[in-house]
């Protein structure tokens, strides 16, 4: 089948019609504009939201990268080994978000010991684990939620590096560290960037983890939208949502630019 330039048009229109228009209609109907945004959600909440999202993104990428490296390394010998590793890392995605959050609640409460209501943590576990309903706990669980996604994206990025470059490097005498520093890292930055953006967009709208693990003290923008919806104040909710959308617009352009660059490198055109 020949590739025509107009081919993406139909799916694009479908996405716009099914996902964008109804949401836009809803937001416009309730007329909550970001001009009143500061009234509904103070600047501090916005800042916290993006700080949490950034920290979770960075941390999950840092944790997932060694895993992805191992997966890539294994794939050069045996595809099955990679598949098993991928299965193990990605398994939490199958389990589902609520179950994962509840498990963390149970785990973090374990560290608290019998004198739970004194808020005191006991035992050796207390040295390593944050307490439940703390900022650290929220960040930890938020990071944990995104590690499988980071792993999959990073692994894919590594797999895209043309084998011929790896081979030539090894033939020319590159050691393991040199390979990593000069070939793998530079060539996977673009897909890593895309992965980071993907995770950031998800994390910026997150509300489940802050609600369950944070005890209502570290609300993110999603929680606030939910509060207003629960009250029936759709205007406030739409103002906050539109505000979030607009704040992320510059990043959409960065993502688009990265995709174009990546495509050029992969397809060469």
């Amino acid at each position, binding site marked *: 089948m020949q590739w025509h330039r107009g081919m993406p048009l139909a799916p694009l229109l479908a996405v716009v019609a099914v996902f964008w228009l109804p949401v836009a209609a809803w937001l416009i109907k309730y007329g909550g504009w970001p001009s009143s945004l500061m009234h509904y959600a103070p600047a501090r909440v916005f800042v916290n939201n993006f700080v949490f999202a950034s920290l979770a993104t960075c941390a999950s990428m840092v944790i997932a990268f060694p895993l992805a490296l191992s997966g890539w390394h294994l794939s050069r010998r045996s595809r099955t080994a990679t598949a098993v590793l991928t299965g193990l890392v990605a398994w939490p995605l199958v389990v589902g978000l609520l179950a994962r959050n509840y498990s963390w609640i149970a785990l973090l409460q374990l560290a608290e010991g019998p004198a739970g209501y004194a808020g005191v943590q006991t035992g050796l576990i207390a040295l390593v684990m944050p307490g439940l309903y703390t900022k650290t706990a929220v960040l930890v669980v938020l990071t944990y939620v995104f590690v499988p996604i980071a792993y999959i994206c990073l692994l894919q990025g590594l797999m895209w590096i043309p084998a011929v470059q790896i081979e030539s490097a090894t033939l020319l005498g590159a050691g393991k560290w040199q390979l990593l520093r000069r070939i793998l890292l530079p060539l996977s930055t673009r897909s890593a960037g895309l992965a980071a953006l993907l995770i950031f967009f998800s994390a910026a709208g997150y509300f489940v983890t802050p609600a369950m693990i944070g005890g209502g003290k570290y609300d993110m923008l999603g929680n606030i939208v939910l509060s207003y919806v629960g*009250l029936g104040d759709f205007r406030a909710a739409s103002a906050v949502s539109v505000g979030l959308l607009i704040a992320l617009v510059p990043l959409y352009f960065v993502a688009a630019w990265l995709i174009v660059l990546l495509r050029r490198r992969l397809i060469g055109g």
Partner: protein
Amino acid sequence: MRRIVMMLCVSSVVAIAGCAAKPPSQPESLTVVSYGGGAYQESHIEALFQPYTQATGTKVNSVVWDANYGRLKAMVESGDVPWDVVEVTSAQYQRGIDEGIYERLLERPADASDFRPGTIGEYGVANVYWGTVLAFRKDAFRGVTPETWRDFWDVTRFPGPRALYDDPRGNLEFALLADGVPKTELYPLDVERAFRKLEEIKPHVRVWWSDGTQPVQLLKTGAVAMSSAWNGRLFAVRSELEDVGYVWDGAALELDWWVIPKGSGHVEASSRFIAFASSADRLARQAELIGYGPVNRRAVRLIDSHVLVHIPTTQTNWPRTFVVDASWWRDHEDEMKARWIAWKAQ
């Protein structure tokens, strides 16, 4: 052969369509929506739905919801309303009337004179009084037990983490009571004073709870020493909660209302159900199962004496409580919510 198959298909489609288009005056089932929480829904099923089905033959489909007003409003505005009768809070009742999402009732309860004043409206009938009480772990404080909201704020005599509902409603009143404002002088609320008082307790609040089951769990596991809680939830699991006590002093009472969302297909049958559910014996039975206070005064007399201590509308408990002023909150809830969010984020 093809034609026969085609005819069979067409006629079966017509038959199915015909069955679906039933005359609305004889509904096969009503969908009645109660709050969640296992015990509460079961109390409705046993005290209201099953007897209704026995009396009228109409099946009742019991559904729960999380009292998310936005969801109800969105449902009505979209025009697709699968719910016939919904239980809403008094705040949502007022708001729904203002925003026009409820149907007018076609039937009034038979014994209207037994009802407390202000509990029968054009768009709904009040169901029960439920209270937000001060609950605490009995073993948390050596020898002393908290008795009022002033004790909740007293971190020297009663040290330990607290939990409060994640909404200004109720909390502003509790703060004012703790600051010494008499119950009779609560409304209109002195918002500045309330927030100043709340600022004192904020560092000690470990969890801002948003789900009815949370205070029960938090107290049971010992994650907090004191918490506000909905009395019905405490009542439902009282056999498991030996270490947890609660007081009626300064409890905030609110009404629940049965309403019919606009666009429901069975307004007449729903009105009839509401009238049935508001009768004295039905409410008494429900109270025995869940511990909320019926608005029908005659119902209170029919309740088992063991349960009476847990009911907010009895002679002993009623004077110690106060009723949350729904009209003040109707006027101020939007701005209070925005202010609450800003305050919590500081």
